[in-house]
């Protein structure tokens, strides 16, 4: 019986010390950021891997999400005789919620796992130790560029997701179903507020970008230097990032919707 409580306590203490270590990593990255800005081509290389190579999955899934929203929304709205509101529904759902959240989940799966596996393997093959031996800080050379690439990439990907999703909703609603095109766009413009809806969605995607990247980086940095350790760390990245994104989404939304 005693060992049961001991295990709970040990697990909790481990989790808390990992949280502390992640926070320490975050501030170390911030303090080394000026060095990584001086050699910005490293960050550009990481933007290519996390951003440009994620474009296909983001664009295709956004298009289908938008089309499904258009179909489902039309099916429900026409029961109440307001099928013209389909544009508002698609735009608000994407800009406020689905754009940032789904992009962050896809980002965690596509880019976050790659970051964790890469850094974990670097650690397992002692490349990070070799760097420290040469007086090159691994945080400045490896971690900080990936962090800033994630922060720059995430809002851009979320904007692309929302825009492509709205185009997908348009394709289903206007040419396929036959909702009036003018009503689709004009009601969208009348009811989507720039500072209220679009900027808040942008802030959300920025916060998700920070959360996903720091989790992926920390899990890679903290992984046991074995094949099994790296694979476990990669799994934990996806689980922790997804939970963090969904939890943060609720917190941010409750801050933003104060009416």
């Amino acid at each position, binding site marked *: 019986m005693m060992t049961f409580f001991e295990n709970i306590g040990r697990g909790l203490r481990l989790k808390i010390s990992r949280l502390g270590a992640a926070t320490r990593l975050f501030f170390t990255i911030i303090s080394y950021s000026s060095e990584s800005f001086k050699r910005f081509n490293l960050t550009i290389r990481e*933007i290519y891997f996390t951003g440009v190579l994620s474009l296909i999955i983001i664009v295709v899934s956004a298009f289908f999400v938008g089309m499904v929203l258009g179909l489902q929304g039309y099916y429900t709205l026409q029961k109440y005789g307001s099928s013209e509101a389909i544009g508002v529904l698609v735009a608000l759902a994407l800009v406020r919620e689905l754009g940032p959240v789904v992009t962050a989940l896809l980002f965690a799966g596509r880019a976050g796992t790659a970051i964790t596996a890469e850094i974990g393997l670097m650690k397992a093959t002692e490349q990070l130790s070799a760097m420290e031996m040469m007086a090159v800080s691994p945080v400045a050379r490896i971690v900080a560029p990936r962090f800033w690439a994630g922060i720059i990439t995430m809002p851009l990907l979320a*904007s692309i997701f929302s825009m*492509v999703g709205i185009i997908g909703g348009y394709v289903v609603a206007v040419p396929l179903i036959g909702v009036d095109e003018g009503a689709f766009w004009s009601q969208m*413009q009348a009811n989507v*507020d720039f500072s209220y809806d*679009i900027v808040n969605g*942008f802030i959300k995607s920025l916060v998700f970008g920070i959360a996903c990247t720091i989790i992926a980086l920390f899990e890679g940095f903290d992984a046991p230097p074995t094949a099994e350790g790296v694979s476990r760390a990669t799994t934990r990245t996806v689980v922790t990032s997804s939970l963090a994104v969904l939890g943060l989404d609720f917190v941010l939304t409750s801050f933003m919707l104060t009416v």
Partner: protein
Amino acid sequence: MDRIKLDAWVGIFVALGLIALMGLAMKVGNLTSNDIKTTYVVTANFENIGGLKPRAPVKSAGVVVGRVDSITFDTKIYEAIVTMSIDERYVPKRYVCQYLYRRLTW
């Protein structure tokens, strides 16, 4: 992959993201129609505001002429006081506040 190609791809990606953001602002949002700068304040009393919210558009003959600033409750007359900012282009001789539309009413 050489440096120039990498830069080009990242440039395309950043440009795409910024275009999407601009598209959201201009085509989806109301940034273009939100050009009311100089305003004057009008207050009105209502027995019941229904579902009126701050920032709801104020319409006259169906045209957006301003926005609702704040809604407060007056404990002397027990009515709601709605404060609105109206575009200065629409200073009327004899103003008739016809309709107050809720944000999601059309």
